């Protein structure tokens, strides 16, 4: 940016609400921030907190696009705020908390509780035989390509963008969402998990699982980690139908 060009004055409109304050109601508040080189929404929101309103709530942890804490609606689209450069947005930017999750305050949501519930429901851990493992011994082997494939799906950061971008969940609040289905695909791929197809069917072979998905695929459009959600949901659906027919 050359010296002559004046920086933009950004108008950042934040949907605010404090559920702990009986007198408060959801409202939009607009803050002005002078744009700087390389400014992200993380930087802009912290400037607002430091200079305009120190009560503004939002969640950043790693601020590097790794931890998944800061998902919010940016001009209506779910995304990670920390890695969103303001230069890619217009002068007027509207921020709102991710819908569907419990609101803590302003842009801060209780996604941890939701994700924990999902993980417990789908039992997203390795189900192995109850034998005592000896870790002095060489580890079990795994084909290198398979390890890479599992990692590909393991990259989900539980940010909740796919949930916020999901059409199905608007109608079926118990739908597991792409985040849940991706986890099942990940464990199904993993030979260390000894669950069989019937057991997976029990978990997601229903309307709240893989058969509930209306294939609108908003999830894949908004996933910040570019997970192959569409192909994995299709794969799971074929697998579940096979299992259903077998029985």
């Amino acid at each position, binding site marked *: 940016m050359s010296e002559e060009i004046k920086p933009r004055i950004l108008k950042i409109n934040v949907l605010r609400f404090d559920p702990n304050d009986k007198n408060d109601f959801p409202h939009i508040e607009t803050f002005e921030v002078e744009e700087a080189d390389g400014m992200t929404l993380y930087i802009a929101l912290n400037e607002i907190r430091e200079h305009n309103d120190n009560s503004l709530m939002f969640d950043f942890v790693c601020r590097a696009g790794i931890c998944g804490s800061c998902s919010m609606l940016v001009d209506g689209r779910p995304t990670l705020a920390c890695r969103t450069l303001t230069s890619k947005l217009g002068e007027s930017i509207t921020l709102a908390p991710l819908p569907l999750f419990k609101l803590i305050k302003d842009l801060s949501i209780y996604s941890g509780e939701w994700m924990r519930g999902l993980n417990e429901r789908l039992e997203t851990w*390795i189900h192995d035989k109850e034998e005592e493992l000896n870790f002095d011994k060489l580890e079990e082997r795994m084909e290198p390509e398979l390890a890479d494939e599992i990692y590909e799906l393991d990259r989900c950061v539980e940010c909740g963008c796919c949930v916020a971008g999901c059409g199905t969940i608007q109608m079926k609040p118990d739908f597991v969402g792409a985040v849940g289905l991706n986890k099942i695909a990940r464990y199904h791929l993993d030979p260390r998990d000894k669950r069989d197809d019937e057991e997976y069917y029990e978990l997601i072979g229903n309307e709240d699982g893989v058969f509930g998905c209306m294939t609108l695929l908003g999830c894949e459009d908004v996933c910040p980690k570019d997970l192959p959600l569409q192909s994995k949901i299709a794969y799971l659906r074929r697998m579940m139908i096979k299992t259903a027919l077998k029985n």
Partner: protein
Amino acid sequence: MKIIYTDVLIIGGGLAGLRVATGVKERGHDAVVLTLVPPKRSHSSAAQGGMQASLANSTMGEGDNEDVHFSDTIKGSDWGADQEVARMFVHCAPKAIRELAAWGVPWSRVKKGDRTAIINAQKVTITEKEEAHGLITARDFGGTKKWRTCYTSDGTGHSMLYAMDNKAHKEKIEIHERQEAISLIVDDGRCYGAVSRNLMTGELVAYVSKATTVATGGYGRIYSVSTNAIICQGIGQAIALETGIATLGNMEAIQFHPTAIVPVGILTTEGCRGDGGLLLDKDGYRFMPDYEPDKKELASRDVVSRRMTEHIRKGKGVKSRYGDHLWLDITILGREHIEKNLREVKEICENFLGIDPAVDWIPVRPTQHYSMGGIRTKYTGESQTLKGLYSCGEAACWDMHGFNRLGGNSVSETVVAGMLIAEYISDFCDSHESSMHIHSSKIEQALAVEKAKIEKLLTNTNGEDTYVLRRRMEEIMMEKVGIFRNGKDLQEAVDELEELYKRSQNIEVHRSKSRAANPALVNAYRTQKMLKVALTVAYGALLRQESRGAHSREDFPERDDENWLKRTITSWPDANQTLPTVSYEEIPIGNMELPPGWRGYGKDLTKHHHATPGRQATVDAIKAQLEKDGADRFEIQSALMPYLEKLPKKYRGINERLGENV
């Protein structure tokens, strides 16, 4: 008044805390984990490059074992580490990584046959053994003799943390999210849990426990630019300090990572250089071989960071409006490699710099990264001075890193220490010693004290602005307690920090007066605590008149074993004092397996301790005799410095490797 009783309270839901929780649960003890954020969002997730464990599966790791890992770790620490603890660590790292493999981490694996790698800017072909196919592979990292850093692409910490948290779900560990421990409950010289504040509702809760573990990570955020997550603010160290009884160790030992991006300070993994990336100056010239002809870009982190700073000071940095920087060039690795093994780095470059690292150079400079110091503990993880208080991971000074941690040894420490300390805590909880003798009035009092502090912050008038104090503290730490330090700057830093600390006692939370979710209130009480931590760092650095590892004094460039082979111990016994109390703990040479020597970087400036030659002669004689007698490496090690008895019985077994003990 809300009181929750449990056997083991764990403060911090990262890798170390979760591993302690699953360990004590397995031994039949109840555990509650308090965490600021959902555990999967902890800073452990940001560890990119890998975990050191001497599996020796890959061809470039052949010949690796505990002995080599131990020697690298001790040299890396500049002989500041506790050698017995380091031995315990290297012995258990292969077990910990295999356990994580069983719990679901998709470690990258060895593929038999030829593959191309970049070593010292040259393309070379590495042939992987048939018998190693499918075992966990490793990459090169700085300061290691062998390729020992195991990984999952560059999302290692993420995969480890997810596997660990899922394991915690499986074991039904109670996790209390958005809870912040703001003080430890202490009675009659024993820690009985913590007062915690619910960050959503503001409610204060007393968690009362037999044993309390602080696993809250490091304190990088006392610096203005840090690779650390913004929650790494040293609050765990601060609440330990505020007991007046617990002590902190080596707080001045701060690591600067060579390659964080400019200006935001986000890390690009050491794996970039481990995989063959180069550091270049403003002329595109590769300068590291001039300074460190042997290890070049893969010298230890403290060394590379200093060499980069030296080179920038010579005018070779690239000018930018955010200050001078250098270049990290990974284009040489090729797009395919970057998109497979360095994809987080690629995403970071795209999102924060708008560049493609397969084509463009990455602007980098050394940035605060790791806290070697922390809550000083015995090898059991228990505070040396406060019974019932434990600590592990980056929060602790256990002390396997001494004055410089090797890349890949941090996530490795979290899971190894967590696994061991869970056993020691369980032993304590199984013993009569652990029964609780605290009167409920003491608990009420602890809650009342914290409530009063918060009320004062919210109702104070004409008080100080938190942000002003906080920003100044961050600047002072950056400018005066950084990579290169000197007596004049450090004295100024201590004086001004002390002044800021005094002013912080009169903070007023302006405007935002909510007692529930209130970021301004959180910032206020954390800043008071962070200033205490900053003072322990700056004061420790001022008093330590030598250069060791990451602590580099321009006015005392030599490592001085005669006077300074010791740990800095800080405490805060009187709540009214405005500077920490400092004492020292000797690091005895008499039982060292690896007596102090030269690390092999630059010119040897060491002032050796008078006891070093004697110990070296003893070590050499024992080794020579046993080798002559045909003793194996375990017998030799045991004769030099026995440590196995200190380990829990279940972790004493000999590790299998290809071609060894299989």
